[in-house]
């Protein structure tokens, strides 16, 4: 299985390489630059880790949803809702300094979870397609953010820019000096990855999640509630994406700003992260770092080669394409036959 994943990545590298060549850049050189840029220096390495943090949190949550065969395409929106809640608490709660950060994380988790529970309830109660609802909820979240920063939450000291005011210092996470790695979120992500793994392999509810995902009919037969299980996985999945949003707010931006600036598609990339990890929360630690490299490498492409950042999206899309394509290979044996069938 690991081999198939690696082959999928290689295939994506080859096809993306064709595009580099089409831009007149040697693919080998481009990849060298990406790896060097993302891993070769302390700064590059730090950027890689910083990108990996939201991918880790979203990706771990998605493995749980995917285990129950709930297709959560909405981590992006859940992340944004977490960011909105964090900003709301940071700017308007008036809580004492000590409580501010914990309150932001709790509020962010709950907001993301709520955003995830809506499609979960719609699917479990009314049978509405989860792919469509979770995806559409992303757009609602994006426009909610835009409305807030242009409207009611627009900063008073921002001279007309569409930002909220800056968070108070007590609402900011500590960084590893000289980097933008907000380590408390990273530690939280690692702990939750382990916790999710224990949930899936050792805990009763995790057993139920797997049964529902592997065979819904057997789950019904065994008396496992589809409704409760679906709500549970989306509470966790949405909540973890919400935490990622809090981390970006309190660790990086310090204010609510345009949705594309907050996220850059972490919620979507996390789908590939979770899938490449074969829905194993522990493996997400590795795959989120890998995609941290790719995203940090995207900056290199932009700065050193003057190529569009979107090439990274192309690469990400290709990996998912080859990964899902390779699922077939794991279930069937290819045989070639000549002559008549």
């Amino acid at each position, binding site marked *: 299985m690991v081999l198939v994943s690696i082959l999928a990545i290689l295939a994506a590298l080859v096809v993306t390489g064709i595009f580099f060549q089409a831009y007149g850049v040697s693919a080998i050189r481009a990849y060298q630059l990406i790896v060097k840029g993302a891993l070769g220096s302390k700064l590059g390495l730090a950027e890689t880790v910083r990108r990996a943090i939201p991918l880790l949190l979203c990706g771990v949550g998605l493995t749980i949803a995917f285990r129950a065969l709930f297709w959560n395409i909405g981590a992006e929106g859940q992340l944004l809702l977490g960011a909105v809640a964090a900003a709301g608490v940071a700017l308007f709660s008036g809580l004492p300094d000590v409580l501010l950060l914990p309150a932001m994380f709790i509020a962010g988790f709950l907001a993301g979870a709520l955003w995830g529970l809506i499609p979960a309830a719609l699917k479990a109660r009314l049978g509405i397609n989860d792919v469509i609802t979770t995806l559409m909820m992303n757009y609602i979240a994006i426009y909610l953010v835009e409305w807030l920063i242009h409207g009611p939450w627009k900063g008073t000291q921002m001279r007309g820019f569409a930002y909220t005011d800056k968070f108070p210092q007590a609402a900011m996470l500590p960084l590893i000096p000289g980097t933008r790695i907000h380590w408390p979120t990273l530690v939280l992500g690692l702990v939750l990855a382990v916790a999710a793994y224990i949930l899936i392999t050792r805990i*009763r509810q995790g057993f139920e999640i797997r*049964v529902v995902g592997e065979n819904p009919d057997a789950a019904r037969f065994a008396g496992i509630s589809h409704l409760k299980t679906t709500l549970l996985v989306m509470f966790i999945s949405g909540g973890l994406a919400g935490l990622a949003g809090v981390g970006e707010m309190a660790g990086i931006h310090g204010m609510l700003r345009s949705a594309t600036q907050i996220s850059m598609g972490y919620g979507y990339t996390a789908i590939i992260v979770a899938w490449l990890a074969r829905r194993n929360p522990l493996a997400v630690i590795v795959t989120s770092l890998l995609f941290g490299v790719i995203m940090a490498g995207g900056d290199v492409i932009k700065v050193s080669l003057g190529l569009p950042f979107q090439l990274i999206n192309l690469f990400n899309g290709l990996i998912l394409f080859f990964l899902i394509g390779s699922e077939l290979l794991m279930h069937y044996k290819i045989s070639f036959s000549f002559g008549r069938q």
Partner: protein
Amino acid sequence: MAITSLIVIFRLTVSRFVFTIINSKEQPHRGPHRIKGVTLATPADYVVQLRGIVKRFPGVVANDGIDLDIKRGEIHCLLGENGAGKTTLMRVLYGLYQPDAGEILLNGKPIQISSPRAALTHHIGMVHQHFRLVPTLSVEENIILGLDEGTGLFLNLRKTRKKIEKIAQEYGLQVDPQTKVWQLSVGQRQRVEILKALYREADILIMDEPTSVLTPQEVDQLFTTLRTLVDDGLTIIFITHKLDEVMRVSNRVTVLRQGKLVATLSTSQMDKPSLARLMVGREVVFRLEKSPLKRGEKLLEVNGLHALSDRGLPALRDVSFDIYGGEILSVAGVSGNGQAELAEVLTGLRRATRGRVFLGGEEITNHSAREIADLGVAHVPAERIRMGIVPNMSVRENLILKDYRHPPFSRGVFLNYKKAEANAQRAMADYQIAAPSDNTAAKLLSGGNIQRMVLARELLGNPRLIVAAHPTYGLDVGATEQVRQVLLKQRDQGAAILLISEDLEEVMALSDRILVMFSGEVMGIVDAEGAKIDEIGLMMAGTRHEGVKQ
């Protein structure tokens, strides 16, 4: 409606058009050999000869060098357990599979059968176990589907109808050509399948387990038809695993076991026990040891139960019965007459729209599956792979699928895998579940072992009521015997058992009382002791037993 018919006509014409092109080079020709009255053959006169047929599937050799000679004008039974390779062999003859080795001779000449269409040009027809009919089309439309009939774009159904009626008359296969197939009973649908083959002028007719869906009366009728066909010069290959049928219908029989040919024999020189020995490879116990009934107290009481099917149609109508401890009540009937819905309502998987269910005096009507299971109701589901197991999870995990929430498998929120493993080891030993380890994925087990696993799980903690739906369906003789013995043992320990089965032999052998369902209603409940097969057959076809209210 008009649009639907237009579409149908369009579809028929298009398919006809396409096949005209394909067929233009191979004009069907009538063999010279079909002469009325001539039924017997000289020894050399074999109509079909299979030579060293080998067919491999990943991990299995389904046919291992099989030689089979079919005489003209005989009914030749292919006998074997599930997985013996009977159907595979016939699919090779019908062109659905290409053999990996071996050759097929028709009237002494080697031929290639590349597709069912090619088989038909050689006058070989097949009636599959699962019918291949389009329910929304009429009988005649189904019969000519894919054939070159009429001229131009339009179908000439009048000629078709005449021909169908003529064949139907000749062989006692009455069915209205203009009826839609979905309106037909299972027995009538089978007749349409046979008509379809005869319309295509099949001389060699392969029937794959044709009796599995029929009532005893329909079976009699089928056998009469088959004899008429043979008298008229056709050759019939009859796939079955039922010894009675071999004895009743065939001239010769070929026994297959694990992909290999065991013997080809004249039926008149054989008896059931020796056939069974050839088929299974060892002695088979025909009579199950059943101890006298020790009726306990009333455990299940069902009063005036109504329920709907998945399609929202009435599936159960006013069903009432009781089951006592230590008793097996069988529900017989052709499947699709409400048995599946009954099992689901009793186990909490389907809502009752009216009526009440009591377990040991306590009402359980429309309680959840979990509540009912916790009250000591075991369920051996009909579709054991779809419902009974989680194919990608391990044997160990599948064995705690019902009890994972309770000690010892659960401590607080944590699962206790040590206990689950010990449980699996014990279950594998007690029920002889053959698996490489308790960590093997359930999907890798054979059908018999999957059923043993389901039984081991469901019978854990000695349930009060066992609802067993088709518990031996598709199992080999060894596994069947074991499952039946397990059920009898539970009965002797005082459990109440509701056994849903289509296999009348099983119903007669196991039950204390027999309930027959037809169209969602109870046709009658009779004591198994002294019950007559004919009487049950009549009830299965919708005749009420004396004393059952209308």
